[in-house]
């Protein structure tokens, strides 16, 4: 009890918690779940965009897309490392992903069907991610907060890049504009769902707030995102696919239509358009790479043995 109170005091004083600091088991578990889920999202998120590397329409865009997908892999790496500071191994987290025990952001269960989707993913999906992540830069757990700072910088770059793809399309031919509008139509609602359902009086969420793992409610972050994004859509000359969307002078923000939470839960539970495909791909990659990892391990072992033998011989 005294420990919990002291811990809360540190949190309240905005002190960062570091790996070797004592922490409540619930705090550790919540963080492991959240950080590993975030890492998994980066890894699975490589798939929809990776799907367009071979078909990117110009060399510049191809290079940028490759670099972006690579950055996502890099973010996965930092985040797995951050989670490892809490006493879980990357392998264990990976197993949880492959077995379906761990989740990843359900946005990546939507397909990237056209080149405009690559723009929309950057603009909307990375945009929504950044809203969440900016808040996390001030998370009470030091390694996570620091990973977030680095990731946020790169994500902002990706978001601008995605928006710039759409600017190009919207300045282009009719087909290109149509492609851009179609991408917005398909990615708008799933992007709003990325913030998660309204939390109401969820105990879980309140505890996260108290521990300063989470600093804003889902609805607040979603509203912020909408308020930032609607003018960007207008600038592009695109129509946000929400008939009920309108400016509310009083709250100085937008009111929006009802989100289809049935769809959200369906996709979370595994019945989105690409859930099975994403997991099948990930499992196949794991299986096909097994011999390589075994070989690397065997070689490292042999090498260590040889060095040990050489040391013995030298003595």
């Amino acid at each position, binding site marked *: 009890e005294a420990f919990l109170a002291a811990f809360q005091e540190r949190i309240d004083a905005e002190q960062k918690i570091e790996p070797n600091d004592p922490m409540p088991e619930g705090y550790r578990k919540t963080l492991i779940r959240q950080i590993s889920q975030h890492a998994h999202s980066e*890894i699975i998120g*490589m*798939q929809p965009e*990776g799907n367009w*590397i*071979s*078909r*990117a*329409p*110009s*060399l*510049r*865009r*191809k*290079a940028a897309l*490759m*670099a972006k*997908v*690579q950055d996502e*892999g*890099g973010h*996965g*790496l930092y985040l*797995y490392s951050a989670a490892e500071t809490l006493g879980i191994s990357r392998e264990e987290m990976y197993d949880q992903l492959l077995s379906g025990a761990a989740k990843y952001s359900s946005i990546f269960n939507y397909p990237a069907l056209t*080149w405009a989707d690559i723009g929309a993913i950057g603009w909307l999906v990375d945009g929504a991610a950044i809203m969440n992540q900016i808040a996390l830069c001030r998370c009470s757990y030091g390694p996570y907060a620091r990973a977030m700072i680095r990731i946020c910088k790169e994500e902002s770059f990706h978001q601008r890049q995605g928006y710039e*793809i759409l600017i*190009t*399309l919207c*300045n*282009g*031919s009719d*087909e*290109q504009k149509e492609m851009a509008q179609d991408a917005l139509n398909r990615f708008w609602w799933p992007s709003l769902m990325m913030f998660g359902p309204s939390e109401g009086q969820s105990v879980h969420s309140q505890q996260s707030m108290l521990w300063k793992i989470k600093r804003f409610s889902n609805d607040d972050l979603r509203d912020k995102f909408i308020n930032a994004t609607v003018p960007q859509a207008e600038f592009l000359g695109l129509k946000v696919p929400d008939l009920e969307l309108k400016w509310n002078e009083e709250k100085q923000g937008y009111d929006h239509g009802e989100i289809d939470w049935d769809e959200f839960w369906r996709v979370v539970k595994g019945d989105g358009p690409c859930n099975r495909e994403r997991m099948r*791909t990930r499992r196949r*990659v794991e299986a*096909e*790479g*097994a*011999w*390589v*990892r*075994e*070989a*690397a391990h*065997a*070689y490292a072992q*042999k090498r260590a043995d040889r060095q040990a033998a050489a040391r013995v011989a030298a003595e």
Partner: protein
Amino acid sequence: MAKDNTLFTYLLRLADDHLILSQRLGEWTGRAPTLEEDLALTNIALDLIGQARSLYSYAGAVEGQGRDEDQLAFTRPERDYLNALIVEQPNGDFAHTIVRQFFIAAFMVPFWREMEKSDDEQLAAIAAKASKEVAYHLRHTAEWVVRLGDGTEESHQRMVEALEGLIIYTGELFENDAIAKAAIAGGYGVDTEALRDEWRQTVVQVLGEATLELPNAGYMQKGGRDGVHTEHLGHILSELQYMQRAYPGLTW
């Protein structure tokens, strides 16, 4: 004019090598055996595509008909692609990809080093940048060659198969045909024949460390420099060119 035509073709061959190889490596992005290797392969692919862009841009300028890097990269028919056959070979398993990249890197290291001495300033400048990059490609792939060759029985066997499958495409890299000879005579091309021994030395040394042997090559396949490819290239192009073909003349 004749000089420019030769230079244009010479640049296109190099550019196509880099583009097609980066396209192949890009197939690994998100699918490599480890996360670290995913980043490493993509790094190499990014270096290659960067080199391709410089080369295409320069080729377009030399040609002087207003074709930019994308028009050159995306809108030629299959028979006009002049890459060596080795770069279009399928990724196969990771052993094949590593051997392919290792063979090529062991060639590109001395190639770019010699190209740094080119009379052509632009080529020399491209070479200076590329030299640094391919040194890493060679180091990285050589490490894998050793790891896989001297890893498990399975990985060793896969390496043996990859070496046997790919060795027949290495000869083409060193051939000085009429274009190459003209480029050498023009003071801007590299005498690749002269790099053969160095390549062999590098390769044999690394393979030795990996408990592997360089297979006897026998007849070396060629044709890519004249646009006569393997059946793989057509399939690569159908993806590579898709957007530019489906929506000609647009800006992306």
